[in-house]
Protein backbone atom coordinates (compact mmCIF):
# COMPACT_ATOMS: atom_id res chain seq x y z
CA UNK A 1 0.00 0.00 0.00
CA UNK A 2 2.41 2.70 1.15
CA UNK A 3 5.52 3.13 -0.94
CA UNK A 4 8.74 3.07 1.04
CA UNK A 5 10.63 5.57 -1.03
CA UNK A 6 13.30 6.42 1.48
CA UNK A 7 15.43 4.37 3.74
CA UNK A 8 13.72 3.60 6.99
CA UNK A 9 14.88 6.43 9.16
CA UNK A 10 15.39 5.88 12.82
CA UNK A 11 15.08 8.75 15.22
CA UNK A 12 16.65 7.01 18.18
CA UNK A 13 19.86 5.14 18.78
CA UNK A 14 20.65 2.70 15.99
CA UNK A 15 21.37 -0.96 16.38
CA UNK A 16 23.56 -2.31 13.66
CA UNK A 17 23.45 -5.97 12.72
CA UNK A 18 25.63 -7.99 14.98
CA UNK A 19 25.67 -5.28 17.65
CA UNK A 20 24.69 -6.57 21.07
CA UNK A 21 22.29 -4.78 23.41
CA UNK A 22 23.88 -3.58 26.64
CA UNK A 23 22.25 -5.68 29.35
CA UNK A 24 21.76 -4.91 33.06
CA UNK A 25 20.57 -7.02 35.98
CA UNK A 26 16.85 -6.82 36.74
CA UNK A 27 17.81 -6.63 40.41
CA UNK A 28 18.41 -3.81 41.22
CA UNK A 29 18.05 -1.82 37.97
CA UNK A 30 14.39 -2.57 37.23
CA UNK A 31 13.11 -3.76 40.60
CA UNK A 32 14.17 -0.49 42.25
CA UNK A 33 12.36 1.61 39.64
CA UNK A 34 9.22 -0.50 40.03
CA UNK A 35 9.37 -0.13 43.81
CA UNK A 36 9.84 3.64 43.64
CA UNK A 37 7.00 4.12 41.17
CA UNK A 38 4.67 1.90 43.20
CA UNK A 39 5.45 3.80 46.40
CA UNK A 40 4.94 7.17 44.69
CA UNK A 41 1.63 6.07 43.20
CA UNK A 42 0.36 4.62 46.48
CA UNK A 43 1.40 7.81 48.28
CA UNK A 44 -0.41 9.99 45.73
CA UNK A 45 -3.58 7.87 45.96
CA UNK A 46 -3.44 7.86 49.77
CA UNK A 47 -3.09 11.64 49.78
CA UNK A 48 -5.97 12.05 47.35
CA UNK A 49 -8.21 9.58 49.22
CA UNK A 50 -7.57 11.40 52.49
CA UNK A 51 -8.68 14.78 51.22
CA UNK A 52 -11.09 14.21 48.34
CA UNK A 53 -14.24 12.22 48.96
CA UNK A 54 -15.78 9.97 46.32
CA UNK A 55 -19.16 11.42 45.34
CA UNK A 56 -22.30 9.98 46.91
CA UNK A 57 -25.46 11.89 45.94
CA UNK A 58 -29.07 11.21 46.95
CA UNK A 59 -30.67 7.80 46.69
CA UNK A 60 -31.35 6.80 43.07
CA UNK A 61 -34.72 8.09 41.94
CA UNK A 62 -35.96 6.95 38.52
CA UNK A 63 -38.59 9.73 38.53
CA UNK A 64 -36.11 12.54 39.01
CA UNK A 65 -33.92 13.00 35.95
CA UNK A 66 -30.91 15.21 36.65
CA UNK A 67 -30.13 17.89 34.10
CA UNK A 68 -27.77 17.15 32.48
CA UNK A 69 -27.51 13.36 32.92
CA UNK A 70 -23.98 12.35 31.99
CA UNK A 71 -22.27 8.98 31.59
CA UNK A 72 -18.91 8.29 33.30
CA UNK A 73 -16.16 10.52 31.87
CA UNK A 74 -14.61 7.87 29.61
CA UNK A 75 -17.96 7.53 27.80
CA UNK A 76 -18.53 11.27 27.38
CA UNK A 77 -16.84 11.21 23.98
CA UNK A 78 -19.44 8.70 22.83
CA UNK A 79 -22.20 10.67 24.52
CA UNK A 80 -20.99 13.70 22.59
CA UNK A 81 -21.37 11.75 19.34
CA UNK A 82 -24.90 10.85 20.48
CA UNK A 83 -25.86 14.51 20.14
CA UNK A 84 -24.95 14.53 16.48
CA UNK A 85 -26.11 11.20 15.07
CA UNK A 86 -28.22 8.09 15.39
CA UNK A 87 -27.78 6.50 18.86
CA UNK A 88 -27.02 3.05 17.41
CA UNK A 89 -24.25 4.57 15.35
CA UNK A 90 -22.74 6.62 18.19
CA UNK A 91 -23.24 4.14 21.02
CA UNK A 92 -22.63 0.78 19.38
CA UNK A 93 -21.14 0.94 15.89
CA UNK A 94 -18.44 3.53 16.59
CA UNK A 95 -17.00 1.97 19.78
CA UNK A 96 -17.16 -1.55 18.32
CA UNK A 97 -15.45 -0.44 15.13
CA UNK A 98 -12.85 1.52 17.10
CA UNK A 99 -11.91 -1.53 19.20
CA UNK A 100 -11.77 -3.88 16.21
CA UNK A 101 -9.67 -1.44 14.17
CA UNK A 102 -7.32 -0.91 17.13
CA UNK A 103 -6.85 -4.68 17.38
CA UNK A 104 -6.10 -4.90 13.66
CA UNK A 105 -3.22 -2.37 13.68
CA UNK A 106 -0.42 -4.97 13.91
CA UNK A 107 -1.94 -7.00 11.08
CA UNK A 108 -1.63 -4.03 8.71
CA UNK A 109 1.74 -2.77 9.89
CA UNK A 110 3.96 -5.85 9.49
CA UNK A 111 7.37 -4.23 9.14
CA UNK A 112 9.45 -4.86 12.24
CA UNK A 113 11.70 -1.87 11.71
CA UNK A 114 10.85 0.99 14.04
CA UNK A 115 10.08 -1.33 16.96
CA UNK A 116 11.21 -0.04 20.33
CA UNK A 117 11.75 3.57 19.23
CA UNK A 118 9.41 6.37 20.22
CA UNK A 119 7.58 7.47 17.03
CA UNK A 120 9.85 5.07 15.06
CA UNK A 121 10.98 7.44 12.31
CA UNK A 122 12.13 11.02 11.90
CA UNK A 123 8.73 11.87 10.45
CA UNK A 124 6.86 10.24 13.35
CA UNK A 125 6.67 13.33 15.55
CA UNK A 126 5.69 15.82 12.79
CA UNK A 127 3.00 13.41 11.58
CA UNK A 128 1.67 13.00 15.14
CA UNK A 129 1.50 16.77 15.63
CA UNK A 130 -0.06 17.34 12.21
CA UNK A 131 -2.68 14.62 12.74
CA UNK A 132 -3.55 15.87 16.21
CA UNK A 133 -4.05 19.47 15.05
CA UNK A 134 -5.98 18.37 11.96
CA UNK A 135 -8.31 16.19 14.07
CA UNK A 136 -8.84 18.73 16.84
CA UNK A 137 -9.58 21.64 14.49
CA UNK A 138 -12.06 19.69 12.36
CA UNK A 139 -13.87 18.10 15.29
CA UNK A 140 -14.17 21.30 17.31
CA UNK A 141 -15.39 23.11 14.18
CA UNK A 142 -17.99 20.42 13.50
CA UNK A 143 -19.26 20.41 17.09
CA UNK A 144 -19.58 24.20 17.14
CA UNK A 145 -21.18 24.26 13.69
CA UNK A 146 -23.73 21.61 14.64
CA UNK A 147 -24.62 23.56 17.78
CA UNK A 148 -25.09 27.02 16.30
CA UNK A 149 -26.02 26.44 12.66
CA UNK A 150 -29.69 27.23 12.02
CA UNK A 151 -31.67 28.89 9.27
CA UNK A 152 -34.80 30.98 9.83
CA UNK A 153 -37.10 28.42 8.25
CA UNK A 154 -36.02 25.61 10.56
CA UNK A 155 -38.33 24.55 13.41
CA UNK A 156 -38.04 26.46 16.66
CA UNK A 157 -35.18 25.06 18.77
CA UNK A 158 -33.76 22.78 16.10
CA UNK A 159 -30.19 23.36 15.00
CA UNK A 160 -27.41 21.56 13.18
CA UNK A 161 -26.77 19.60 10.04
CA UNK A 162 -29.18 16.71 10.55
CA UNK A 163 -32.39 18.76 11.09
CA UNK A 164 -31.31 21.07 8.27
CA UNK A 165 -31.27 18.17 5.83
CA UNK A 166 -34.30 16.37 7.23
CA UNK A 167 -36.49 19.48 7.34
CA UNK A 168 -35.16 20.71 4.01
CA UNK A 169 -36.01 17.49 2.22
CA UNK A 170 -39.36 17.26 4.01
CA UNK A 171 -40.07 20.77 2.78
CA UNK A 172 -39.55 19.42 -0.71
CA UNK A 173 -42.32 16.93 -0.07
CA UNK A 174 -40.43 13.82 1.07
CA UNK A 175 -41.65 11.74 4.03
CA UNK A 176 -39.71 11.89 7.31
CA UNK A 177 -39.08 8.15 7.49
CA UNK A 178 -37.25 8.30 4.17
CA UNK A 179 -35.08 11.30 4.89
CA UNK A 180 -34.25 11.29 8.60
CA UNK A 181 -31.59 8.58 8.14
CA UNK A 182 -29.68 10.83 5.74
CA UNK A 183 -28.89 13.36 8.45
CA UNK A 184 -28.74 10.84 11.31
CA UNK A 185 -26.73 8.03 9.74
CA UNK A 186 -25.48 8.77 6.24
CA UNK A 187 -23.81 12.16 6.73
CA UNK A 188 -22.18 11.31 10.10
CA UNK A 189 -20.91 8.02 8.66
CA UNK A 190 -19.47 9.77 5.63
CA UNK A 191 -17.77 12.34 7.86
CA UNK A 192 -16.38 9.72 10.24
CA UNK A 193 -14.86 7.79 7.33
CA UNK A 194 -13.81 10.84 5.31
CA UNK A 195 -11.95 12.67 8.10
CA UNK A 196 -9.40 9.88 8.76
CA UNK A 197 -9.37 8.98 5.05
CA UNK A 198 -8.38 12.50 4.01
CA UNK A 199 -5.85 12.52 6.84
CA UNK A 200 -4.20 9.42 5.36
CA UNK A 201 -4.17 10.97 1.89
CA UNK A 202 -2.63 14.18 3.25
CA UNK A 203 -0.01 12.37 5.29
CA UNK A 204 0.94 10.20 2.32
CA UNK A 205 1.32 13.24 0.09
CA UNK A 206 2.92 15.60 2.51
CA UNK A 207 5.26 13.19 4.29
CA UNK A 208 5.51 10.28 1.83
CA UNK A 209 4.40 8.17 4.77
CA UNK A 210 5.07 4.46 4.95
CA UNK A 211 2.67 2.02 6.62
CA UNK A 212 3.99 2.67 10.14
CA UNK A 213 3.60 6.42 9.65
CA UNK A 214 0.05 6.00 8.33
CA UNK A 215 -0.75 4.02 11.47
CA UNK A 216 0.77 6.83 13.56
CA UNK A 217 -1.54 9.30 11.81
CA UNK A 218 -4.60 7.09 12.41
CA UNK A 219 -3.77 6.35 16.04
CA UNK A 220 -3.20 10.08 16.61
CA UNK A 221 -6.63 10.67 15.07
CA UNK A 222 -8.17 8.17 17.51
CA UNK A 223 -6.20 9.51 20.49
CA UNK A 224 -7.03 13.15 19.75
CA UNK A 225 -10.70 12.39 19.04
CA UNK A 226 -11.00 10.67 22.41
CA UNK A 227 -9.46 13.63 24.23
CA UNK A 228 -11.27 16.37 22.30
CA UNK A 229 -14.72 14.78 22.47
CA UNK A 230 -14.35 13.71 26.11
CA UNK A 231 -13.18 17.21 27.06
CA UNK A 232 -16.11 18.82 25.26
CA UNK A 233 -18.53 16.39 26.92
CA UNK A 234 -16.99 16.92 30.35
CA UNK A 235 -16.29 20.65 30.47
CA UNK A 236 -18.38 22.31 27.76
CA UNK A 237 -21.76 20.57 28.01
CA UNK A 238 -24.12 22.02 30.60
CA UNK A 239 -27.86 22.16 31.12
CA UNK A 240 -29.79 20.19 28.49
CA UNK A 241 -26.40 19.28 26.99
CA UNK A 242 -26.02 22.73 25.43
CA UNK A 243 -22.58 23.97 24.51
CA UNK A 244 -21.26 26.52 27.02
CA UNK A 245 -18.07 27.70 28.71
CA UNK A 246 -16.74 25.55 31.56
CA UNK A 247 -17.51 28.26 34.14
CA UNK A 248 -21.14 28.28 33.05
CA UNK A 249 -21.54 24.53 33.50
CA UNK A 250 -23.40 23.96 36.75
CA UNK A 251 -23.62 20.65 38.62
CA UNK A 252 -26.69 18.58 37.64
CA UNK A 253 -29.93 19.57 39.33
Amino acid at each position, binding site marked *: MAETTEKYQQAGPKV*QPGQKEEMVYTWPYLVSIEAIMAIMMIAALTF*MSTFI*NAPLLDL*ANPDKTPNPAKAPWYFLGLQELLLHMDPALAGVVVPTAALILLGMIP*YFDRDRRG*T*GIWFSTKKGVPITVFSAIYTAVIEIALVVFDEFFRLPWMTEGSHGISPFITEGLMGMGMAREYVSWIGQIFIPLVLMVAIPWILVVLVKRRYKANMREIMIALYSFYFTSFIVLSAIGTFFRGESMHLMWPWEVKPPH
Partner: protein
Amino acid sequence: MGLWAKFKNTTLYKSIYRNEYPDTPRNQVLVILNSVVLHLHPVKLPRRAVRVSYTWGLGGLSLLMFLILTITGVWLMFYYVPAVPDAYFSMKLLETNVIFGAFARNMHRWAAHAMVIAVWLHMTRVFYTGSYKPPREFNWVIGVVLFLITVLLSFTGYLLPWDQLAYWAIQVGSNMAKVSPVVGTYVQMALLGGYDIGPATLIRWYTAHVILLPLAAIVLMAMHFWRIRKDGGISTPIPYDEDGETDPLNEPAK
Protein backbone atom coordinates in the same frame (compact mmCIF):
# COMPACT_ATOMS: atom_id res chain seq x y z
CA MET B 1 27.12 -11.85 65.68
CA GLY B 2 24.18 -9.43 65.49
CA LEU B 3 20.60 -10.46 66.04
CA TRP B 4 19.72 -10.03 62.36
CA ALA B 5 22.69 -12.10 61.28
CA LYS B 6 21.65 -14.79 63.74
CA PHE B 7 18.13 -14.75 62.40
CA LYS B 8 19.44 -15.13 58.87
CA ASN B 9 21.16 -18.30 60.01
CA THR B 10 17.97 -19.95 61.24
CA THR B 11 16.22 -22.76 59.39
CA LEU B 12 13.10 -20.57 59.15
CA TYR B 13 14.87 -17.74 57.30
CA LYS B 14 16.70 -20.12 55.02
CA SER B 15 13.47 -21.91 54.20
CA ILE B 16 11.94 -18.62 53.00
CA TYR B 17 14.90 -16.98 51.25
CA ARG B 18 17.01 -19.40 49.29
CA ASN B 19 19.84 -17.00 48.60
CA GLU B 20 21.80 -14.21 50.23
CA TYR B 21 20.89 -10.56 49.74
CA PRO B 22 21.26 -9.95 45.98
CA ASP B 23 24.44 -7.86 45.85
CA THR B 24 26.56 -10.25 43.85
CA PRO B 25 25.86 -11.25 40.22
CA ARG B 26 25.13 -14.80 41.31
CA ASN B 27 22.57 -13.72 43.88
CA GLN B 28 21.12 -11.10 41.54
CA VAL B 29 20.30 -13.95 39.18
CA LEU B 30 19.02 -16.24 41.93
CA VAL B 31 16.68 -13.68 43.48
CA ILE B 32 14.79 -13.40 40.19
CA LEU B 33 14.75 -17.12 39.53
CA ASN B 34 13.74 -18.12 43.05
CA SER B 35 10.84 -15.73 43.63
CA VAL B 36 7.45 -16.36 42.10
CA VAL B 37 6.69 -12.65 41.78
CA LEU B 38 10.10 -11.53 40.54
CA HIS B 39 10.18 -14.48 38.20
CA LEU B 40 7.78 -12.58 35.93
CA HIS B 41 10.94 -10.68 34.96
CA PRO B 42 13.89 -11.91 33.01
CA VAL B 43 17.18 -12.03 34.93
CA LYS B 44 18.74 -9.36 32.73
CA LEU B 45 17.25 -6.82 30.39
CA PRO B 46 18.44 -4.17 27.94
CA ARG B 47 19.64 -0.98 29.59
CA ARG B 48 17.65 1.15 27.16
CA ALA B 49 14.41 -0.60 28.20
CA VAL B 50 14.93 0.23 31.87
CA ARG B 51 14.76 3.97 31.22
CA VAL B 52 11.58 5.46 32.75
CA SER B 53 11.20 7.67 29.68
CA TYR B 54 10.79 4.56 27.54
CA THR B 55 7.83 2.89 29.28
CA TRP B 56 6.83 5.39 31.99
CA GLY B 57 6.08 2.28 34.04
CA LEU B 58 2.51 2.40 32.80
CA GLY B 59 1.95 -1.34 32.45
CA GLY B 60 3.27 -1.90 35.95
CA LEU B 61 1.13 0.93 37.31
CA SER B 62 -1.94 -0.62 35.68
CA LEU B 63 -1.20 -3.86 37.51
CA LEU B 64 -0.61 -1.94 40.74
CA MET B 65 -4.02 -0.24 40.34
CA PHE B 66 -5.60 -3.65 39.81
CA LEU B 67 -4.00 -4.93 43.03
CA ILE B 68 -5.10 -1.88 45.03
CA LEU B 69 -8.61 -2.24 43.60
CA THR B 70 -8.71 -5.93 44.53
CA ILE B 71 -7.65 -5.25 48.11
CA THR B 72 -9.94 -2.25 48.68
CA GLY B 73 -12.71 -4.02 46.73
CA VAL B 74 -12.67 -7.11 48.93
CA TRP B 75 -12.65 -4.80 51.94
CA LEU B 76 -15.71 -2.96 50.61
CA MET B 77 -17.51 -6.27 50.01
CA PHE B 78 -17.55 -6.88 53.77
CA TYR B 79 -19.88 -3.90 54.13
CA TYR B 80 -21.69 -3.59 50.82
CA VAL B 81 -25.20 -5.03 50.38
CA PRO B 82 -26.07 -5.64 46.72
CA ALA B 83 -29.79 -4.90 46.98
CA VAL B 84 -32.16 -2.03 46.23
CA PRO B 85 -32.17 0.29 48.11
CA ASP B 86 -29.92 -1.23 50.84
CA ALA B 87 -26.86 -0.70 48.65
CA TYR B 88 -27.14 3.05 49.02
CA PHE B 89 -27.64 2.94 52.78
CA SER B 90 -24.76 0.50 53.26
CA MET B 91 -22.54 3.05 51.54
CA LYS B 92 -23.91 5.83 53.76
CA LEU B 93 -23.19 3.72 56.84
CA LEU B 94 -19.74 2.88 55.54
CA GLU B 95 -18.88 6.55 55.41
CA THR B 96 -20.07 7.32 58.93
CA ASN B 97 -19.90 4.10 60.97
CA VAL B 98 -16.86 2.20 59.72
CA ILE B 99 -13.32 3.17 60.64
CA PHE B 100 -11.46 4.18 57.46
CA GLY B 101 -14.69 3.44 55.61
CA ALA B 102 -14.74 6.63 53.58
CA PHE B 103 -10.99 6.33 52.99
CA ALA B 104 -11.29 2.82 51.54
CA ARG B 105 -14.13 3.85 49.27
CA ASN B 106 -12.22 6.92 48.12
CA MET B 107 -9.17 4.79 47.41
CA HIS B 108 -11.27 2.35 45.38
CA ARG B 109 -12.86 5.15 43.40
CA TRP B 110 -9.69 7.09 42.59
CA ALA B 111 -7.67 3.98 41.83
CA ALA B 112 -10.41 2.93 39.40
CA HIS B 113 -10.16 6.20 37.48
CA ALA B 114 -6.37 5.97 37.65
CA MET B 115 -6.49 2.45 36.21
CA VAL B 116 -8.58 3.49 33.19
CA ILE B 117 -6.10 6.32 32.52
CA ALA B 118 -3.03 4.14 33.12
CA VAL B 119 -4.25 1.35 30.84
CA TRP B 120 -5.16 3.81 28.10
CA LEU B 121 -1.80 5.58 28.34
CA HIS B 122 -0.02 2.22 28.41
CA MET B 123 -1.74 1.31 25.15
CA THR B 124 -0.67 4.67 23.72
CA ARG B 125 2.93 4.12 24.84
CA VAL B 126 2.99 0.67 23.27
CA PHE B 127 1.58 2.09 20.05
CA TYR B 128 3.97 5.02 19.68
CA THR B 129 7.03 2.90 20.43
CA GLY B 130 5.95 0.45 17.75
CA SER B 131 5.88 -2.36 20.29
CA TYR B 132 2.82 -4.01 18.72
CA LYS B 133 4.81 -5.01 15.64
CA PRO B 134 5.50 -8.68 14.88
CA PRO B 135 5.96 -10.95 16.77
CA ARG B 136 3.92 -9.08 19.38
CA GLU B 137 0.70 -8.73 17.34
CA PHE B 138 -1.48 -10.98 19.42
CA ASN B 139 -0.29 -9.54 22.72
CA TRP B 140 -1.51 -6.18 21.41
CA VAL B 141 -4.91 -7.77 20.73
CA ILE B 142 -5.01 -9.15 24.28
CA GLY B 143 -4.13 -5.67 25.50
CA VAL B 144 -7.03 -4.12 23.59
CA VAL B 145 -9.39 -6.66 25.19
CA LEU B 146 -7.90 -5.86 28.62
CA PHE B 147 -8.58 -2.18 27.95
CA LEU B 148 -12.22 -3.03 27.21
CA ILE B 149 -12.44 -5.13 30.41
CA THR B 150 -10.93 -2.28 32.42
CA VAL B 151 -13.59 0.12 31.15
CA LEU B 152 -16.34 -2.44 31.80
CA LEU B 153 -15.02 -3.03 35.33
CA SER B 154 -15.16 0.69 35.99
CA PHE B 155 -18.60 1.03 34.40
CA THR B 156 -20.16 -1.88 36.34
CA GLY B 157 -18.73 -0.46 39.55
CA TYR B 158 -20.28 2.90 38.77
CA LEU B 159 -23.82 1.59 39.39
CA LEU B 160 -23.16 -0.08 42.73
CA PRO B 161 -23.59 2.90 45.13
CA TRP B 162 -27.14 3.24 43.77
CA ASP B 163 -27.23 7.00 44.09
CA GLN B 164 -28.49 9.53 41.56
CA LEU B 165 -25.08 9.82 39.92
CA ALA B 166 -24.79 6.04 39.51
CA TYR B 167 -28.33 5.48 38.33
CA TRP B 168 -28.40 8.18 35.67
CA ALA B 169 -24.89 7.60 34.38
CA ILE B 170 -25.79 3.95 33.82
CA GLN B 171 -29.12 5.02 32.30
CA VAL B 172 -27.26 7.10 29.72
CA GLY B 173 -24.64 4.39 29.16
CA SER B 174 -27.03 1.47 28.80
CA ASN B 175 -29.41 3.47 26.59
CA MET B 176 -26.56 3.50 24.10
CA ALA B 177 -26.25 -0.30 24.23
CA LYS B 178 -29.94 -1.07 23.91
CA VAL B 179 -30.25 0.58 20.51
CA SER B 180 -27.77 -1.92 19.00
CA PRO B 181 -28.94 -2.96 15.56
CA VAL B 182 -30.66 -6.39 15.51
CA VAL B 183 -29.50 -7.55 18.97
CA GLY B 184 -30.59 -4.45 20.91
CA THR B 185 -33.39 -6.05 22.91
CA TYR B 186 -31.25 -9.06 23.81
CA VAL B 187 -28.40 -6.80 24.89
CA GLN B 188 -30.79 -4.78 27.01
CA MET B 189 -32.26 -7.91 28.64
CA ALA B 190 -28.81 -9.37 29.27
CA LEU B 191 -27.42 -6.13 30.70
CA LEU B 192 -30.37 -4.90 32.72
CA GLY B 193 -32.22 -8.14 33.46
CA GLY B 194 -35.42 -6.38 32.41
CA TYR B 195 -36.68 -3.37 30.56
CA ASP B 196 -35.26 -0.86 32.99
CA ILE B 197 -32.54 -0.51 35.61
CA GLY B 198 -33.74 -2.22 38.78
CA PRO B 199 -32.84 -4.79 41.44
CA ALA B 200 -32.04 -7.40 38.76
CA THR B 201 -29.61 -4.98 37.12
CA LEU B 202 -27.83 -4.29 40.37
CA ILE B 203 -27.19 -7.96 41.20
CA ARG B 204 -26.03 -8.64 37.62
CA TRP B 205 -23.61 -5.78 37.58
CA TYR B 206 -22.41 -6.59 41.08
CA THR B 207 -21.62 -10.17 40.10
CA ALA B 208 -19.90 -9.03 36.91
CA HIS B 209 -17.97 -6.41 38.87
CA VAL B 210 -16.70 -8.56 41.73
CA ILE B 211 -16.13 -11.93 40.08
CA LEU B 212 -16.76 -12.31 36.34
CA LEU B 213 -14.75 -9.38 34.99
CA PRO B 214 -11.90 -9.62 37.55
CA LEU B 215 -11.46 -13.32 36.71
CA ALA B 216 -11.42 -12.52 33.00
CA ALA B 217 -8.90 -9.74 33.66
CA ILE B 218 -6.67 -12.06 35.71
CA VAL B 219 -6.65 -14.77 33.03
CA LEU B 220 -5.91 -12.27 30.27
CA MET B 221 -3.25 -10.52 32.35
CA ALA B 222 -1.52 -13.86 32.91
CA MET B 223 -1.51 -14.42 29.14
CA HIS B 224 -0.40 -10.82 28.55
CA PHE B 225 2.61 -11.07 30.90
CA TRP B 226 3.53 -14.57 29.74
CA ARG B 227 3.50 -13.50 26.13
CA ILE B 228 5.73 -10.47 26.80
CA ARG B 229 8.47 -12.96 27.74
CA LYS B 230 7.60 -15.46 25.00
CA ASP B 231 7.50 -12.77 22.31
CA GLY B 232 11.06 -11.71 23.07
CA GLY B 233 10.76 -9.58 26.20
CA ILE B 234 10.46 -5.84 26.23
CA SER B 235 10.62 -4.32 22.76
CA THR B 236 13.98 -3.06 21.53
CA PRO B 237 15.07 -1.70 18.15
CA ILE B 238 15.46 -4.30 15.43
CA PRO B 239 18.97 -4.60 14.05
CA TYR B 240 19.02 -4.17 10.30
CA ASP B 241 21.34 -3.02 7.58
CA GLU B 242 20.87 0.67 6.71
CA ASP B 243 22.16 0.14 3.19
CA GLY B 244 20.28 -3.06 2.56
CA GLU B 245 16.83 -1.37 2.46
CA THR B 246 15.16 -4.56 3.63
CA ASP B 247 14.44 -5.77 7.10
CA PRO B 248 16.32 -9.06 7.38
CA LEU B 249 13.52 -10.49 9.51
CA ASN B 250 10.56 -9.41 7.45
CA GLU B 251 9.47 -8.40 4.02
CA PRO B 252 9.37 -4.63 3.40
CA ALA B 253 6.03 -2.82 3.23
CA LYS B 254 4.63 -2.80 -0.28
